[in-house]
């Protein structure tokens, strides 16, 4: 084990069980002072549970926790806060109905008195300025009015604000998943700076490039245990994927020799973004996977929603010639029905087919759900369990199953792979390719370069219009970035 400076936190044989599920099965973990520790693993490997234990929101069933040399017997969120542990959770933990400044106040009980509003505003805006220069967030903006990327920025910045307690350990759980490439870079640079100042970070991400790039040491988790722990320089991408286990290490790049000619199959979608000048159109034919690229929030989602609205009988200057299903990106807000079971969540897009007479047939619903559980590997003992019993990545699989299990011939995907692990991603890529070959059309908004490589054709968006139209052969990451940032001439 490599020790970078004295130890800050040490976990010794920590176990946590949820019923029959062993979420943590004897984990040893050490974080040094001024160290950036990367934590990777599949969905359900136990990373989130580990973080809840470190922040005091869950207590271990067995094992010891030592913080700065003293063993913590009665560990609680309050105690964690006193010790300087901060966490940026994967689900946003801001209050949408409060302003940015008020959300900072929620975090700092000391911010009271007559002028608290101004103080809180300055505190959070200073941090935002330090981490994300040019962020465009105001202290009196309501969080609900901010797009998801900026909400994530506020959440990150808030974790680094200091009033009376010091910041000693910051845990970032998928902080970059809702940020575009530029803001993600700003965050990673900032993390290196605070680590140099002696703050410790735990960085959880499914974007292995980022982890390899900024972490000093990487710990790999699998099935509730740590299976590898070494300096970051001793890993490479393939090595990490192999350590995480389960899938073979090669990202399956382009489909070999599928030089298909466009326009052979029937037209499925023809659409123009609202603010588009000129005659550029997005065109999708049967069996194609079309990528919508560019920085986050530049009109990709709007276009997908316009297509969806048109397919449901709305008006608009676009052609949609088949049935449509949408895979939502913000799964908590737009995707899952939190009170329903997994089976109900899968079946809701196919109710007409699940009917028997006037009523829904539970047998058909179960059959559909079980078929997709097997096909895309939703990790659950029973499809009648509540959807929230699944980890984030598995919830996302349910949303895919809902769309793919329906009769829709066109599937719209709104950056659906946010916070999904590499193994799941590779499985889903294969599934999409298979479905496309059988004649389905995919419109896929994504902010990740790896996913664009899965597409037959890519449109790059900037400020609500299409600025580049790249065929598979022309597509390179540089080209996408270049056109995303090109100044409008």
């Amino acid at each position: 084990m490599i020790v970078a400076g004295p130890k800050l936190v040490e976990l010794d044989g920590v176990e946590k069980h949820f019923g029959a599920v062993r979420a943590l099965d004897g984990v040893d973990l050490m974080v040094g002072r001024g160290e950036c520790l990367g934590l990777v693993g599949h969905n359900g490997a136990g990373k989130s549970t580990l973080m809840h234990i470190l922040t005091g929101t869950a207590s271990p069933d067995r094992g010891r926790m030592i913080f700065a040399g003293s063993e913590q017997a009665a560990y609680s969120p309050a105690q964690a806060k006193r010790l300087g542990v901060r966490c940026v959770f994967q689900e946003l933990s801001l209050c949408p109905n409060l302003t940015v400044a008020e959300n900072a106040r929620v975090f700092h009980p000391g911010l009271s008195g007559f002028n608290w509003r101004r103080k809180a505003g300055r505190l959070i805006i200073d941090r935002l300025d330090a981490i994300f220069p040019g962020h465009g967030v105001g202290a009196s903006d309501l969080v609900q009015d901010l797009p998801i990327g900026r909400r994530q920025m506020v959440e990150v910045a808030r974790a680094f604000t200091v009033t009376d307690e010091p910041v000693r350990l910051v845990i970032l759980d998928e902080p970059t998943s809702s940020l575009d490439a530029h803001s993600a870079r700003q965050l990673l640079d900032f993390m290196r700076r605070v680590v140099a100042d002696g703050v410790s970070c735990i960085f959880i991400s499914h974007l292995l490039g980022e982890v390899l790039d900024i972490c000093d040491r990487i710990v790999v988790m699998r099935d509730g245990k740590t299976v590898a722990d070494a300096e970051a320089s001793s890993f490479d991408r393939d090595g990490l994927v192999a350590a995480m286990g389960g899938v073979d290490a090669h990202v399956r790049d382009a489909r070999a020799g599928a030089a298909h000619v466009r326009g052979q199959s029937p037209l499925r979608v023809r659409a123009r973004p609202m603010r588009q000048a000129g005659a550029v159109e997005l065109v999708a034919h049967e069996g194609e996977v079309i990528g919508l690229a560019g920085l986050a929030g530049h009109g990709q989602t709007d276009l997908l929603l316009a297509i969806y609205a048109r397919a449901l009988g709305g008006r608009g200057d676009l052609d949609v010639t088949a049935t449509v299903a949408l895979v939502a990106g913000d799964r908590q807000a737009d995707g899952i029905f939190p009170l329903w079971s997994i089976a109900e969540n899968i079946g809701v897009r196919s109710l007409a087919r699940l009917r028997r007479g006037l009523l829904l047939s539970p047998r058909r619903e179960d059959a559909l759900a079980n078929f997709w559980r097997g096909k895309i590997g939703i990790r659950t003992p029973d499809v009648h369990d509540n959807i929230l019993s699944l980890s984030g990545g598995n919830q996302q699989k349910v949303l895919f199953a809902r769309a793919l299990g329906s009769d829709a011939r066109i599937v719209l995907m709104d950056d659906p792979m946010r916070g999904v692990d590499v193994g799941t991603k590779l499985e889903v890529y294969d599934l999409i390719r298979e479905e496309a070959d059988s004649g389905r059309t995919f419109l896929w908004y994504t902010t990740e370069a790896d996913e664009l490589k899965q597409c037959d054709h890519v449109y790059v968006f900037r400020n609500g219009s299409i600025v580049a139209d790249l065929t598979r052969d022309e597509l390179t990451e540089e080209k996408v970035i270049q056109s995303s940032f090109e100044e409008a001439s």
Partner: protein
Amino acid sequence: MTIPVAASAPAAHGPDRIELRRLLRALLPALSLALVLMAIAWLNPRAISYFGFTLMLNLAIPIALATIAQMFVIAGNDLDLSIGAFVGFVGCVAATWLRETPLVGILVLLGCIAVYAALGALIHLRNLPSIVVTLGMSFVWQGLAILLLPKPGGKAPDWLLAIMGVKPPVVPFPILAALVIAAVAYVGLMRTSYGAILRGSGGNAVAIGRAGWSLLKAKMALFACTGLFGVLSGLALIGITTSADANIGNGYTLLSIAGVILGGGEFVGGRVSPIGAVIGALTLALAASPLLTFMHIPPDWQVAANGAILIVVLAARVLISRKDVER
């Protein structure tokens, strides 16, 4: 990377749009009040006077107080279906005990606020739906009121009559009272640092809990505020009507909910506006009897017409806010 400049391009017109949207949202309640006032001015210009406003808006004071009371529970994603019966009970206490044995009366009213806080604790600890609990409580309050005052009667304490009968110069008393109520509720819930926590508990309770705040205390505080404003509403009502009746506040439950919603509040998510709620209450009070009387609608039809106006006004609000989202 050499690309940091263009990234903020969409931000350039972002803040303006947000500002505009917030402004529109805030102005909606005022707009509906202005519409009702214009209708009244058109039907009967003489009503727009010191005396006219005092007369038309007198009953708006207890409605505004009840609406603010309702707003506090709605801020925490709950609903109080007992506020009307509670106002009636407070009225009965005010017209009997508070006049005859003031100490007992004051203790009972303080006890009522404590009961409200306890209801908040019960709802939080047992994770009960507030609708069910408060619906049950509405029968309790009503039953107590009938025990206390089986027949309409009693008399309001003189000091209460004196307060409600004040005639300030230039500005009619109800308008002054509405301003004070709105200001107090606004400062309390929107400007204080603990008010942010209370609203946050409606917006994202998990986040508030994680940040180390007690959700139990927040819920109890919200319900206690509801109790407090409910008591004030009952006192104001009796100060105007001079005597009490166990059923006197029954209409207030739905009026107060409608007032909060009309004022820009939402049932879930901790989105409420105290100033909007008071304006909403004034709008409803005006749209209720004065407007209908001026329109020469016979009393038999007034309740139905009142409901129709409520639907139209609320539908207009939804339409306007939807336009706002589309933009």
